[in-house]
Structure formats: C-alpha cells, structure tokens
C-alpha cells in the first residue's frame, strides 16, 4: 500500500512542533516518545502499521481548533482518530503527520427525552450512549459489532452500520447535529435538536467522509424508544439459494425485520465450535430473522415468517420463546469473527454490498476464487440489506499469504461492483479499498469528489492517502477547459 511520500522537513522539525503543540495542549496531551507512539501505529486493520510523528490528545474544542489552525499554517498533516477500531485503515497514521486522538472528549452533554435526542462528545462509545439512556427505555439504534469500543465520532466519520440497518438506518439516518472544526480552525455548528439543517446538507456530507473534511467535536444523535419486544427465528437451509428466496419472500410479504443475518457452512461450523449456540451443522445456510416492535405485531408476523420458511423449505426451524433463547440464537453470529479467528491464524474481513438476488452467484464465484487462491473463506451476510462480510482465512507467517488474501479480497470486491453492488457497505474505503475506487467510479466521478474535499481542505492536510487513489492538487482540479460553442443546438428541442 503506497502512502504519500513523508515530508522529511516536517519530520526533522519534530521537536519544534512538539513544543508548539504543548503550548496548545498542556501536560500529557502531546505524545512524542516513540515507545508510547506505538499504541497508535495501527487500527482495526492490523496488516498495516506506521507510528505517527506525534500524537495529540486535546480536551476542548478550542484546543482542537488551535491545533488544526497551527497545522494548517505550518502545512502539517493530521489523522483524526476515535477508538481506532476502523477495519479499513481509516486511522492509519502517517510518518510525517500527527494523530489527533479524540478519546478525551468522552462526556455526555445533554439527554433530552422530550426531543428524543442526546448531545454527546465524539469520544463517547456507541454503546455508552445506549447505556446512558436505557433506564428510560431508549436506545441509540446503529449497532456496529465493535459498539462496546468504537466511538460515536468514529461512527460519524465512517457512517457505521450494524445488523439493524434495513429497518433503522445507518449512522447518517440517526444524527441531528454536529459541531466540527475545519482545517483552518473555524468551528461550525450544523443542525441541532430540530430536523433538517438549513442550507446544504453538510451533516449528511460529513457523515462517512472518513476524517477527510473536518474534525467532529460534538454530535447530536436521535434516540429511539426500545421496541416492546423482539423475537427471532433460527432457520437452516440446504442451499443459500433457498435461504435467499425466503429473504425475498419476507420482504415481498411487506415485512421489514429488525435484523436478518445469514451464515454459510464454514461460518456456522466455526461459530458452533466456539460458542455452542446449538446451530445445526448439516445445513448450507443459516438464517436468523429477528422481528421487533409492539408485541401484538411481532407475534402476528412471526407466524407469517414461520409459514414462509416452511414454504421455502427450511430444514430446521426454531422460534425463540424467551429472551434468553433469542440471545443464544445471536451468540454464534455475534461471535462469528473471533470464532473464525480460532480456525485460522489470521483472517481478512471484507465488506462489499450486493443486490441481494445476486447472492447465490456471488457465493459460487467466491468458492471458485477460494480454490484458485488456495485460501478458505467463511461468509456472514447482512441478508436484509445485501451487505456481505467474507472472512478470508490466511496465515500471515506464511510467505506471500497476506498478499494472496488481499488479492482474493480485491477480486471479491470487484465482483460486488460487477453485479451492481459497491466496494464497502459499512467499513469505509480507508487505505484498504482506496486503490479499488476506479473500479466503481470514473475519473470524473472521483475528481468531483476530490473537488468537494478541496472546498474543505485545499491543502489536503486532513487524513491524506485515504479514500482517493490519486492525489490531485486542488488548483489543478479546479481548472476547466472551456471551448466556446454556438448557442443553437439544432438537434435539441427548445421551447
């Protein structure tokens, strides 16, 4: 993975920069020691490592603003970081850049049940929000699997999802407002407790911008009332095709389940060996369908789903009769990643999205690729929204296997795009999928996105080397080649 060439002049000024930063963030908030900096050398995508030049841990918006302004004036690169759980290398440091850690922004500022929202600092964990409001029966809906550790600021940067996206949306659908700092130190407030901010939807643009546009210092999230009840069905199928048919049939029946998760045979076996959730081992596909909402509704819809499952040939069927049983159904799925970690020294988690009806085709092609590369693959799949997580099994200690795993992964993602899907459903582009962007977008598409970046960060100091395969100078992007033509388009209808 080629990163921007480090600027030796910046690296040689390290001591001077540290001194300046300590004037802004006093005490232990500026980390310059090489051993201490190792903590930051990678995020959830552990294949890549690079210690930062310096790490800064500000505590106030004013400090963030001053740090950014200083870096802007001095031309120093910045990589913002929440909890560092990114699976796409979004928080991978730069040798000549500082890591701006938002971990100390860990306070919940306001909980407003009447307006069903909470104002929190970006370092609060995703689950921390729900914990703070659950006594009153509320929760924050997006639930990425790293929710115990990942921060809401990181969720905003990555537009994180989870298993309940089809019904409750991603991060972007659950935000009301932001406070953010631009690279020149300007602090902006967007939205608030009301709906739809005035002017351009900068809140929507910021969400999922992977730390390339600004640094979020405060977030207003929507809170939802906890559903009255939730029940799940655990269904086994002899083929992924019939499992896929059931998913389509459920939606055709007008039902939008809270969660709908599929696992393939290798994933089922790995999970069952690990947590003994009672999964059937003689099936090719396992489907967990969870319905949530008012009890009267859930009980009624369970019958419909159960009947549809019979029609589509489910070979095993269990319906949760208690909360404990429902949790047991989920236990295997939620432990799928570590379970796969037990059967392989390393695994590489992919994140494409496909039109759901392409699943059998994609799984078939994936099996062929698996043979071609000589690497195993286990699949977990957010079946409701088409988000696929193939886990490629490899051994980093074996010469060349990491490269093989990456190539395999790239082939899978290209396949996702080929069948009408996208490179990433919820993990972000980061460094991982950066060089695949041209497989999904034209040069014009990518340049337009980069022009938007220029509107925020004209010197490309915020998280450079991520998302875009090629760095262009903003002046060059802004140029327009104009050839003046004649007004009348003879071929064009005009009225």
């Amino acid at each position: 993975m080629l990163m921007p060439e480090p600027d030796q002049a910046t690296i040689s000024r390290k001591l001077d920069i540290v001194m300046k930063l300590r004037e802004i963030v006093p005490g232990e908030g500026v980390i310059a020691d090489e051993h201490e900096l190792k903590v930051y050398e990678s995020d959830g995508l552990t294949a890549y490592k690079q210690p930062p030049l310096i790490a800064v841990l500000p505590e106030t918006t004013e400090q963030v603003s001053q740090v950014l302004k200083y870096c802007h004036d001095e031309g120093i690169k910045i990589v913002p970081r929440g909890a560092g759980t990114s699976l796409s290398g979004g928080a991978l440091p730069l040798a000549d850049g500082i890591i701006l850690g938002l971990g100390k922004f860990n306070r919940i500022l306001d909980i407003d049940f009447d307006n069903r929202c909470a104002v929190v600092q970006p370092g609060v964990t995703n689950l921390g929000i729900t914990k703070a409001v659950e006594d009153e029966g509320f929760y924050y809906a997006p639930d990425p699997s790293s929710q115990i550790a990942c921060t809401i600021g990181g969720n905003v940067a990555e537009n994180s999802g989870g298993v309940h996206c089809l019904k409750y949306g991603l991060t972007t659908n659950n935000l009301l407002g932001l406070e953010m700092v631009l690279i020149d130190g300007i602090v902006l407030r967007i939205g608030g407790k009301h709906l739809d901010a005035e002017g351009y939807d900068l809140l929507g643009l910021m969400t999922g911008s992977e730390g390339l546009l600004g640094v979020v210092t405060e977030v207003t999230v929507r809170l939802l009332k906890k559903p009255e009840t939730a029940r799940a069905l655990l269904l086994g199928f002899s083929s992924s095709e019939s499992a896929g048919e059931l998913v389509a049939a459920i939606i055709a029946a007008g039902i939008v389940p809270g969660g709908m998760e599929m696992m393939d045979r290798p994933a089922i076996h790995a999970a069952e060996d690990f947590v003994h959730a009672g999964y059937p081992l003689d099936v090719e596909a396992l489907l967990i369908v969870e319905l949530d909402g008012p009890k009267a509704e859930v009980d009624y819809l369970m019958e419909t789903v159960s009947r549809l499952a019979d029609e589509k040939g489910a070979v095993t069927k269990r319906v949760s009769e208690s909360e404990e049983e429902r949790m047991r159904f989920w236990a295997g799925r939620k432990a799928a990643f570590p379970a796969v970690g037990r059967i392989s020294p390393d695994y590489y988690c992919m994140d494409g999205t496909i039109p759901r009806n392409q699943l059998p085709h994609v799984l078939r092609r994936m099996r062929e690729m698996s043979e071609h590369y000589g690497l195993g693959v286990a699949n977990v799949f957010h079946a409701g929204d088409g988000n696929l997580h193939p886990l490629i099994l490899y051994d980093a200690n074996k010469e060349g296997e990491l490269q093989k795993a990456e190539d395999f992964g790239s082939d899978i993602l290209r396949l996702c795009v080929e069948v009408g899907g996208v490179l990433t459903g919820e993990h972000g582009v980061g460094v991982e999928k950066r060089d695949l962007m041209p497989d999904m977008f034209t040069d014009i598409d990518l340049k337009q996105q980069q022009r938007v970046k220029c509107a925020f960060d004209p010197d490309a100091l915020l998280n450079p080397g991520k998302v875009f395969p090629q760095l262009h100078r903003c002046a060059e992007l802004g140029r327009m080649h104009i050839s003046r033509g004649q007004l009348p388009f003879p071929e064009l209808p005009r009225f």
Partner: protein
Amino acid sequence: MADRFKPESIEQVADVVSWAAAENTPIEILGRGSKAALGRPTQTEYSLDLSALTGITLYEPDELVLSARAGTPMAEIEAALAEQNQYLAFEPADYGPLLNGSAGDDVTSGSLGGVMSCNLAGPRRIKSGAARDHFLGLKGVSGRGEIFQAGGRVVKNVTGYDLMKLHAGAYGTLSALTDITVKVLPAPDKTRSVLLFGLDDAMAVKAMTQAMGSSHEVSAAACLPAEIAKGFENSHFPDTAKSVTAIRVEGPGPSVTHRCAALRNELGAQTESNELHSHNSTSLWTYIRNVMPFALSGQAGPGESDAVWRVSVPPASGAEYVAALQQSLGDQAAGLRYFFDWSGGLIWLALPEDADAQQQAVRDALSPYGGHATLIRASADLRNRVAVFQPLDLGISALSSRVKNSFDPHGIMNPGRMYAGV
C-alpha cells in the same frame, strides 16, 4: 420568458450546461415546474427543462430499490409503487396546491428530481426520515458540464462521499440531476389515527411528545388548531370547533388495533377522543402533508394572498415557539394562522404579506430553541426582498459557497435560488 432547452438525454443536458459554462450564462434548472415559485427568484435568460427525461429505469420490489429519470412525474412513481404495495416512506409532499392552486393542475404533480432536490418530506419524517435518507444514488451533470455519478443501488453503501445528501435540498444549485435511485419500502397494511379533541397547543405538544416517546411506533403526530381543523370536513371531527390532535399508527391489522387502543388509553384520559380508520385517516394526512389548510383556492378571499412559512424547531418546543411569536406580534397576531406537524417540530405559518410577512419576528422567535424558517410561499417581490431560506452563519455560508464552487465554478446553476452567491 426565458429561452428554454428541453434535452432528451443526459448527453444533451451536458451539452447545454457546457455551453452555458463557456458563455458564463446562468440557467434555471426545472423539473416539471411545480415548485418554480419556491425559492429566491432567479434572473436567467435560459432555462434547462428536465421534464423530457422520464421513465422508471429499474424497479425491483424484492430489492427495495427504484431508479428513474429525474423528470419522471411523482404520480407515475407512486402508481408503480402502489401496484406492488410499496411506497416512498418519507411521504413526499406535493406543494402544487399550496404554490399553484387549482390553476396549476397540469403541473401539480412534481417530478422525482424536484422532490429530491427540495428534500421534501411529509408527516412520516419524524419516524422514517426525509428524502435525503432514501436517496441511494444519482447521475447528473455538474455545473462544469461533466456527467458524473455517486452512490449506488444498494441500501448500505459508504463508498465515497455521500453526494446524494448534498444534492438533497440543494435546489439545483450544484448539478442538474438526470437519474435518481431511491430506497422503497413495503407499504403498511393498515393505517389508523387516534384523534384527541380540544387540547390547547401546549397540551397537544405534550400529548404528541408522550406518544412519540412510547413504544407504539407512532408514524405521524400533528395538531390542527380549531380554526384549521374546521377546514377539514369530516364527520369524525366534532361538530363544534375544537382543535384536533392526530396521532397515526401503521402496520399489520392486529398490531394497529392494539396500538390505537393503547394510545387512547394512555392519552385519551385527558380529553375526548376518537379514531380515524383507513380512508379517512389517509385523507387527513394528505391534507396535512400537502399543507391544504393554506392551499390556494383560486378565489379572492382572506388568506389567499398570505405568505406561508415553514418553521422547523425542536419538537417539544413547538407550542412555546408559537406563543413567543404571538406575543412578539402583538396586535398583528390576529393575522396569524398555523398548525403543527412532526410532533410539534414542524410549524406551518400563514401571515399577511405586509411587514415582510413578519420575517423578523418569525426568525427572532427561533433563537431560544434553534431551528430555521423558510418562506415557502410569497410574491416574487417579497421573495426578492427577504431571505427565503434561513440566513446562514458566516462560516457555514463561506463553506457553502466553496462547495457550490466545487460543482459549479462559474455559478451558472440556479444561481441565487437559495442564497446570494450560492
């Protein structure tokens, strides 16, 4: 009358925009023209009419996705969805009756491109989000004359910047959209509304807040003061003028029955209540969604020339906002008509045009709560004089200009429609 281009392909759209960019000539971007009177009046010699770009290009009900050309009439989209028992969950409003009245019948149904570009959403906004939340992918021509696309056709996608959100509510000031992909959802089996009669504004907002904070999955909550309620002729409304607070639940039959009963039980003790079922419930919400209380009737009369404001505030502050506005209007408050949607978070105000439709008071009253006010209907003269959209903070304003510039460096796409310089 502006000289009008009506291209039939995206390439032709690109030709027109490229020409306009080369000539540095601003163009007005139009869908079907149903909302032409919304926004600041633009001074353009040419207009780009996208209404010939029509047709649904992809609709896969099982995949919950629909793509259509931007000029496709909403009526066509809604009919196709209804055939499969699906809908656009954000419940797009049709401002035709509000802006054009019956005179505008032929254009009363706007286009998909127009709905997305204005980010229009109806009463279900509070539960299901706005147009922006269902906007999966786009193709269009930037102000540079370049054909580009963003997003995709799947609901879960974080590949690249979310330019769909940026275009939702950009009123055509960045690009001319030609192709749009949206998320669609199964339509609910049943709809019912619990009606509470005679609550004052504060009590109504309190009741709506309680309903929204319940686990009954309320999909809309609105309050029509007595004066407004009497305009909706329905036998289930009380004979004497009373305010009507309506709370909607949707879903499978047994669930709807159960939740309505629970809501009446929890809220009804405060006052007299009733229920509206299927057809009656649907017409009430269409009435609210399309702002029918302030629609143009085509006949001279009180209110016909009123300006209409759309105010967004934190929902629980809705009644307080109106009370504060009334107080600051003093004697002028008699000319104010209003009703609440979005559980109090959306307030529709009708005010006489004189005194700049009270823009100072309407916006000043926002400050304790936060929010914004948009002048949705007013004479061109008034829309020229007062800020139609909520004035932006300086930093946001500067950033917005730079974002505009990144798509449209010559400032030719609907310039000034939202803000001067944007």
